[in-house]
C-alpha cells in the first residue's frame, strides 16, 4: 500500500488571483455556473416549499374535506365540489351534515357567488334529525368560464341561527353531466 506523505497537497490549490484575462474570464464563468446552478434550484424548491405551506395553512377557502361552519356544534363537511361542463354547465355542491345534538338541524345552501361577483340565485335546505347524518346536494347552472367562489350558508337549530358567506376553493372541472 502506497503511503503518501501527509504533507503532500494532493491537488494544486486555487491559483492566487491572476492578472491574465483568461483566468479572469474563467473565474467569471465559474461564478456564473455556481450562481445559476445553485440559485435556480434554490428558487424552484423555495417557491415549491412556500407554495405547499400556504396550501397547508389554507387561504381560507373551503375545499373537499373541510368543515364549513366552525361556529356550529354540528359538523358540515364538503364531500364534493365540482363543475360539470355539460351542457348545461353546472356547479354541484354536496355537504355531509352530522347532527350529534338533541335538536333537529336545518342547513340552507344558496345563493352562489362567482369569482366575478355574480350572484346565482337558488337554494336548497336539508333537515337533519337529532343524532343523524344527512346530506345536502345542490346544483346551480353557471355561465361559461364562471368560477364558483362563495356560497351563503344558513344554519338553524333550536333558537339559534348562524349565517355565513363561505369562500370556496377552486372546484375540479369535468366534462359531461353530474
Amino acid at each position: 500500500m502506497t503511503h503518501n506523505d501527509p504533507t503532500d497537497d494532493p491537488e494544486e490549490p486555487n491559483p492566487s488571483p491572476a492578472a491574465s484575462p483568461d483566468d479572469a474570464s474563467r473565474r467569471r464563468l465559474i461564478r456564473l455556473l455556481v450562481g445559476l446552478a445553485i440559485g435556480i434550484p434554490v428558487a424552484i424548491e423555495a417557491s415549491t416549499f412556500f407554495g405547499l405551506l400556504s396550501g397547508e395553512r389554507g387561504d381560507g377557502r373551503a375545499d373537499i374535506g373541510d368543515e364549513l361552519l366552525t361556529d356550529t356544534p354540528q359538523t358540515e363537511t364538503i364531500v364534493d365540489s365540482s363543475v360539470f361542463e355539460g351542457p348545461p354547465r353546472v356547479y354541484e355542491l354536496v355537504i355531509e351534515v352530522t347532527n350529534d345534538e338533541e335538536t333537529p338541524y336545518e342547513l340552507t345552501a344558496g345563493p352562489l357567488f362567482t369569482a366575478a361577483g355574480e350572484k346565482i340565485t337558488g337554494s336548497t335546505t336539508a333537515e337533519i334529525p337529532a343524532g343523524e347524518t344527512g346530506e345536502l346536494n345542490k346544483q346551480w347552472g353557471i355561465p361559461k368560464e364562471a368560477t364558483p367562489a362563495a356560497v351563503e350558508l344558513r344554519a338553524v337549530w333550536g333558537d339559534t341561527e348562524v349565517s355565513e358567506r363561505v369562500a370556496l376553493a377552486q372546484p375540479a372541472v369535468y366534462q359531461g353531466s353530474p
Partner: protein
Amino acid sequence: MTFIDDYPHEAKLVRYCFAVAFAALGVGGLLGLVQALHRTGVLRIIDSSDYYTVLTAHGVLLALVFTTFFIAGLFRWAVTRSLERGVVSQRYSWLWFGTLLTGTILAAVPILAGFFPNVPMSADVLFTFYPPLQAHPVFYVGAVLLIVGSWLAGADYFRSFAGWRRENPDERIPLQTFMVLTTMLMWYLATIGVAAEVLFFLIPWSLGLIQTVDPLLSRTLFWFFGHPVVYFWLLPAYLVWYTILPKLSGGRLLSDPLARIVFVLFLLLSTPVGFHHQYVDPGIPSGYKFVAMVNTMFLLLPSLLTAFTVVASMEHGARQRGGKGRLNWLRALPWDNPAFVGCALAGLMFAAGGFSGMINAGMNINYLIHNTLWIPGHFHLTVGTAAALTYMAVTYWLLPQLTGKELALKKWALVQPYLWFVGMTLMSNAMHRGGLAGIPRRTAEPQYDQVSFDAVVGSVSEMRLQIALGGTLLFVSLVLFLAVLVATWLGPRVEQISVNSAIPEPLSGSDHAPLVLDNLRLWAAIAVLLVIIAYGIPIWSMLADGPFAPGSPPFPV
C-alpha cells in the same frame, strides 16, 4: 507512472466496461428525452403504443446495463489500485466481461424488436418485468447472464483479495477493497431473489413449460432484489465520495472507521426491506410490511453518517486550500474541477432524494404517492443523479489514468454537471408535484377527458412544461459528457497526464477501526439472518399456497 502503465490489462478491461456503460447511457438517455417530451404532450415522435418499448429500453439500459458495467469497471480499478495487484487471471476477467456483454445483447434485442411489429419477439415488460407482462424468453436469458456476469466479476475481486490476504495476513483490508467486497456480498444475497424468479418461473413460463405464475410471489422475489439493487448503484458512488472526493476537495477522508461502519450497515440492511415496494400488495401481512418499514427507516442512518463524514472531509479540504469562516470555506472548494463539481452536486441532490425516499418508506404516506409520477421523480434524484452524475464526474478524473490521455473539451466538462443539476431539479421537482396531484407513472398519455388533476402547487400544464424543459437540459448535459468522452478517447497519449492520482491516507485511519469490522463472514451471516426474519415466513406461505397459484396467464394473451 499512471494506472495504464502499471496495470495495462486492468486499464483495458475498465475501459471496455466504461465503453459499454456509456454507450448504454447514450441510447438510454436519448430514449428518456423521447419519453419526457411524449408524455408531456410537447413532442410525440413515437406511437403511444410503443411507449412501453421505449420505457423498457430506457429502464433496462440505464438502470441495469449502464450501472452494472460502470460498477464492474470502477470496482476492478478500485481493487487493483488499493491492493496494488492486478487480476488473478486475465482470461477469467474477459470471461465475466463477455458474460455481461452477451447478457446485455440478448436482453436488448427483444426489447428493441418491440419497435418492429414484423419481428416476432418483444419485451415490453419495463425494468421490473412483473408478470403477467411477459417477454420473449431470450430477454430473460439475457437478464440471467447479466446477473451471472456480475457474480463472476465479484468473484474476480474476491480472488484478488484472497491472493493479497495470503501475502498480508495481518493487515487491515484496504478501504476501497473493503467497500467493494461488502457491496458484492450484499449483491450476492440480493440477487438470489431475482435469479430464482427468472430461472424457476419466468423462463419456463415464457417457454410455455408452465401455464401460470403467481404474480405475488414473482413480485416478492423481484423486490427482494429490487431494493438492494439501488444500493448496488449507490455504494460505488459512496466509494467515490469517501475515497476520492476528499482528495479532489484538497484534503483527506475524515474517518476510515466510519466509512467501514456505513458499508457494514448497508450489507446488513439493504435486503430485508423489499416489502416497502409492496405496501399495496395483498397477500403480505401488514406486520411484515411494518418490519420492512422499520428496517428502511434504519437505512437512513448510514446515509446520514455519510453526509456528515463526506461534508466534513470536504470542509477539511477547503480549509487546507485556505478557506475560512463558518460557511465561507465553501468558496475555497474547487468549483472549477468538473470531477469535484459532479460529485458534490450529486451528493447534494442525494439528500433530497433520500428525504423523498423516506416518504416512500412510510407505510401510510406511501399510499399518497404510490404508482404516481412522484416515484420516478424520486429515483431520478437517486440513481439518476447521485449515482449517474457521480459516475460521470469520477470518469473525468479516471479517464486520463485509464487512457494516458489528457481530458479534452474541459470547458464542456465543467458546464456538464452544473447543467445536469439544474435540469434534474426542474424535472424532478415537477415530477414530485405531479405525483402529489395524482398524475400516474408509466403512462404514455396522462391527459384524460374525464379527470382533471388537482395541482397542490402550481398548475399541471406548468409541470408538464417543466418536465419537458428539465429532460431537455439533461439530454444536452449528456451530449456534453459523451462529447468529452469521445474527444478524450480519440486524443493522443501524452508523456505525463496532469491528473494527480495519489489518494492520501484518511485523518483517522484503518488502525482506529475495530477489527470486527473486517470480519466479513460475521456481517454476511447476520445479513442472511435478517433476510430470513424479514422474508422467511411470507415467502414460505406464498410457496405453501402452491408456487404457481393463484396464477396468471401471460399478457398479452
